[in-house]
């Protein structure tokens, strides 16, 4: 039984300061809240905000304090729902993520489709508190929920031909009217990729929730990737397809501007973005861009071996 009644206070039930200070907007939201409560009584089984079962602690978690739920859900890059940071929270509220399947195909012995229910039960869910480092030189700490991507990939049994993993996001103009390439400025559907050994690394998280709840739409519901040693755009959202392939797959931001966004995009203070320095980051909600960026976002001990002998300035 995955979905149980909330036993204790959820992160999202703590009234954020911006809400209790902003009564008018809160009152405007009351009708929606009422409808939401009705839906819950009618027995909506899962979906965004549903409480996840107890999560195992992970040794990979940072001990840093997570950002607030409100911060993480109202400051998003999700161009299918608008190119400003505030738009996804407004435009993704009705994103329908059920039913949902993830297809695993390509160079695998057992290609198949997984339902969300199967994905949720495939392995014990862990809480992984990771620092999420955006290529825009800010970072936030998020308590994600999920398990290592390798658990899912192993189910499909990659063949010896498989060298890379290609990911694809959901894309539907009926649900995402702003997701036209000429509006978003990037090719869609959003695609990302990892080398197979990167994808099999235990840190690479197949993520289904955060703050103990199912993922909210703007954060990539119902299932996304979190690759904590790479810039945030590698952590593709709302995944529908995973394809094992023999050569390096195309990736969205690399296609948009290869000079600025490489295939690897490992967090690296020594390799600047052409338009800004990556040496320091702004640890939100701090105002100041004064914190030294960590090599591989602080996971050098775990992942540096994956890139032994590689020129990381060339393979940015």
């Amino acid at each position, binding site marked *: 039984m995955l979905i149980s009644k909330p036993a204790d206070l959820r992160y999202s039930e703590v009234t954020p*300061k*911006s809400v209790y*200070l*902003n009564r008018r907007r809160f009152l405007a939201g009351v009708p929606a809240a009422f409808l939401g409560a009705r839906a819950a009584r009618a027995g909506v089984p899962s979906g965004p905000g549903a409480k996840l079962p107890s999560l195992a602690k992970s040794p990979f978690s940072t001990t840093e304090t997570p*950002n*607030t739920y*409100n*911060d*993480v859900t*109202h*400051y998003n890059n999700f*161009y299918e729902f608008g*190119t400003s*940071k*505030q738009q996804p929270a407004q435009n993704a509220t009705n994103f329908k993520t059920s039913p949902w399947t993830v297809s695993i195909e390509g160079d695998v012995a057992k290609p198949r489709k997984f339902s969300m229910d199967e994905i949720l039960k495939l392995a014990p869910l862990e809480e992984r508190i990771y620092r999420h480092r955006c290529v*825009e030189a*800010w970072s*936030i700490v998020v308590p994600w929920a999920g398990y290592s991507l390798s658990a899912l990939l192993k189910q499909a049994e990659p063949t010896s031909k498989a060298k890379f993993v290609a990911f694809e996001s959901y894309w539907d103009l009926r649900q995402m009217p702003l997701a036209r390439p000429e*509006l*978003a*400025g*990037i090719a869609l559907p959003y695609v990302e990729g990892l080398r197979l050994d990167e994808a099999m690394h235990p840190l690479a998280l197949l993520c289904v929730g955060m703050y103990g709840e199912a993922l909210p739409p703007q954060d990539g519901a119902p299932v996304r990737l979190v690759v904590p040693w790479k810039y945030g755009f590698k952590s593709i959202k709302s995944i529908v397809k995973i394809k094992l392939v023999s050569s390096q797959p195309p990736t969205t931001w690399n296609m*948009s*501007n290869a000079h600025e966004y490489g295939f690897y995009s490992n967090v690296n203070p020594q390799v600047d973005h*052409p*338009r*800004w*320095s990556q040496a320091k980051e*702004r640890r*939100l*909600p701090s*105002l*100041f*861009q*004064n914190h030294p960026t960590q090599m591989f976002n602080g996971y050098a001990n775990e992942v540096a071996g994956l890139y032994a002998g590689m020129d990381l300035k060339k393979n940015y």
Partner: protein
Amino acid sequence: MLRSRWTKALAFLVCLAPLFHLAWRVWNQDVTANPTEFIQHFTGDWAIRLTVATLAVTPLRKLLGVPDLIRFRRMIGLFAFFYACLHVLTYLWLDKLFDFPAMLKDVGKRPFITAGFAAFACLVPLALTSTAGWIRRLGGKRWQRLHSLVYVTAIAAVAHYYWLVKSDIRQPMLYATLVALLLCWRVVSRTIRNNAVRRA
């Protein structure tokens, strides 16, 4: 009506409204998880909007036949400078923590910062010489020639914005179009005037 003292006071308040709006949002913590970015974009937006507005004054005076609009041009220009100052201040303070060597490195190395810096630098002498005393001291012709630096500001500001955005270029293209139209109007009206003079 445009000659009344009150319209000038009203224009002053209108130009100040964005600052109050920003203060209100900061007070309500309605500035996203990244307040610095929000404030930077907000002040940058108003700096470029008011720059475009000053460029629009002369064409609107001629096209609409309301010469009194000139009374507001200096104020709009000074407010553009005011928001540009706030914009630059957030960069110097919150991004660079007043590390001037690092800032100069940025200006030299990164085209979008070079363009932004140029746009701002060109506004400084215009703000300083905006008083009646300076117009007198420089003489109308020379003052006007100096103040055509605002064209450099407008073009550099658009370039700064265009190079900043990651993919969605609709906003910078809107400003680029407005600036191009306002500059074209000047070229065309000057050509017509010169031809008229030659004929006469």
